[in-house]
């Protein structure tokens, strides 16, 4: 039975992943900004089999509260062995280009908040000698593109940070998982026109669940994104800069 901290629990991907753990009878500590939404999700998870689902209302952009969140999670669940970091915003690229403050805010939400959360958790897991840290990054972090490079920068930084962390902790029994989803049909992407590459959050959730249980390092979801990104990364910069991507 797992003891799981879910950050950004009202996000579609987190909710679907939490359902899979609920079915196993796991214990969950859910963090999000909206109390009503958190309670709706917590009740759903309990009906689906979660032994316990605790709500904790917090804005993850308030870094000062991160220690409190972690402490509360460990007290409520009587320990902690899994963390799923799923919060984030899909940046408005144009706004970020016009105004540094907005770009900075996006980097705080999508990158620095992860560092702030994971740093103490990594130390706790290192000390206890076990634990899984799973963070949702993105294929957008693989190569900078004009359409969303601020978001891409944050996600790329997350992936790099996790890579280093994995390198540091793998001898300590701590599992670090980088999740790189492609296009997912969620409220976050509702304003985007949908194409054939869009998949449902429950499909992503299955991939995350499998990757956590099988202790994978990095997963692309769906798997074909590994190939797509490999090809995209192969394009020489001299040509790439001319593309409208």
């Amino acid at each position, binding site marked *: 039975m797992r003891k799981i901290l879910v950050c950004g629990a009202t996000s579609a991907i987190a909710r679907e992943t939490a359902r899979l753990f609920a079915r196993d009878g796991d214990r969950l500590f859910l963090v999000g900004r909206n109390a*009503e*939404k958190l309670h*709706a999700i917590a*009740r759903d998870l309990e009906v*689906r089999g979660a032994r316990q689902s605790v709500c904790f209302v917090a804005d993850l952009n308030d870094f000062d509260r991160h220690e409190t969140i972690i402490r509360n999670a460990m007290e409520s669940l009587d320990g902690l062995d899994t963390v799923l970091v799923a919060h984030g915003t899909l940046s408005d690229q144009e706004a970020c280009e016009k105004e540094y403050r907005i770009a900075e805010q996006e980097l705080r939400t999508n990158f620095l908040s992860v560092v702030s959360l994971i740093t103490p958790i990594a130390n706790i897991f290192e000390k206890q000698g076990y634990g899984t840290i799973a963070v949702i990054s993105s294929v957008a972090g693989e190569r900078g593109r004009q359409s969303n490079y601020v978001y891409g920068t944050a996600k790329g930084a997350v992936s790099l940070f996790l890579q280093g962390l994995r390198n540091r902790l793998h001898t300590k029994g701590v599992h670090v998982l980088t999740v790189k989803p492609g296009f997912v049909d969620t*409220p976050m992407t509702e304003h985007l026109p949908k194409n054939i590459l869009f998949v449902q959050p429950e*499909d992503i959730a299955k991939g995350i669940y499998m990757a956590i249980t099988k202790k994978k390092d990095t997963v692309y979801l769906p798997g074909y994104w590994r190939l797509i990104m490999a090809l995209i990364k192969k394009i020489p910069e001299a040509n790439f800069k001319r593309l409208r991507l």
Partner: protein
Amino acid sequence: MGRLHHQSWGRYPRAEQSVRFVDWIPDPLPVNINDTSLLPYGLGRSYGDSCLNDRGTLLDVSRLDRFISFDAENGILRCEAGVSLADILELTVPKGWFLPVTPGTKFVTVGGAIANDIHGKNHHRAGTFGNHTLRFELVRSSGQRIPCSPMENPEWFNATVGGIGLTGLITWAEIRLKRIRTASLDVETIRFDNLAEFFSLSAESDRNFEYTVAWVDCFSRGDSSGRGLFMRANHADVGPAVSSSGPAHSGRASRLNIPFDAPDFLLSDFLMKVFNGLYFRRQREKRSRKILSFDPFFYPLDALGRWNRLYGKPGFFQYQCVVPNGDHRQAAYHILKTVAHSSPGVYLAVLKIFGDTQSPGMLSFPRPGLTFALDIPNRGQTSFALMERLDAIVREAHGAVYPAKDARMSGESFDAFFPGWRDFERYVDPEFSSSFWRRVTGNHLVTK
């Protein structure tokens, strides 16, 4: 954002509409979007245009998919309106509870099951879904939230059960489930050679069997006219334990998917005639008996994702009518004769006797009598003409055609089938409408 995949199951007619998702119960309805009307949309399993709102807005409830509570002692389930029957079965079958009423697919939402007041093979025993709905919340475009039950705001309860989504948005509902001891059914299949035999089998079986339904070969004429297979079943007392049932498959993830529209030749009248004949002969002996898991018994077509594509690009119709007790035998012969000589043929026909359990719904379709469900490919004018002829028979017999499956009945027919619609109209939300509703009431509105 227009989304092509927000269509109806028969894929006729096609509609252009914008789509808004309802993500959370407390969310206010998005009223006055581009000045268009609203219509709730679940999984799009209505066959015709009752789930479409051409040039309007759909409120997609598929994200309202959370359970709220489940009392496993008494079988009382409360959930959001976008939860599918497949989700419910996955949760409750291992705990020994089954849906009180289920249609031929589990990929419908609870909200849709209430709004269409669906029925199943146990109608003669259990009535409709509305008979087992304990309460729900109805959200009106005014922002008003109306708690509805047979005791609380019963007029809103009765208007919304079978109200085809027009009275407002159902956000959550509470239903009473049914105890089962195993996940299997004890199924008996009996061959019959004509309608008279079907009627006596029904009369004999409806007393002792929870589920009864018949398949009829509509291509057969003359002596073999009205031949078919009668299926009757009860939940099995012995068999695999409830917990051994496999996981429910979602519509997207079903094992086998029809990847594209079938070419025309696959669904020719000739091939379907051969298929129907073979299906009849597959059962060699007069009677057979077997234990079936609930999935293949209730949802044989769910194993085949998007099977509606088999009817090709033009789509198809399902014509479901009921003829009330009294003239029903004569009407049944008349209907069978009409379809046996028709082109296009009727590819699949299902018969069942409805019981006399009264549904609370003002606009509910089932009534005591005989119901026919006929699958008819869309061959343009000839298909429409066939269904017009059937409408005339049903009107004469004082029956009705099922709105959830209709794409073409005239306003006059609707008026004859559902004279109560004028009372019902008072409960229609001023901001809500559907392609179906405009079609069947449009004429009347002009002459008002």
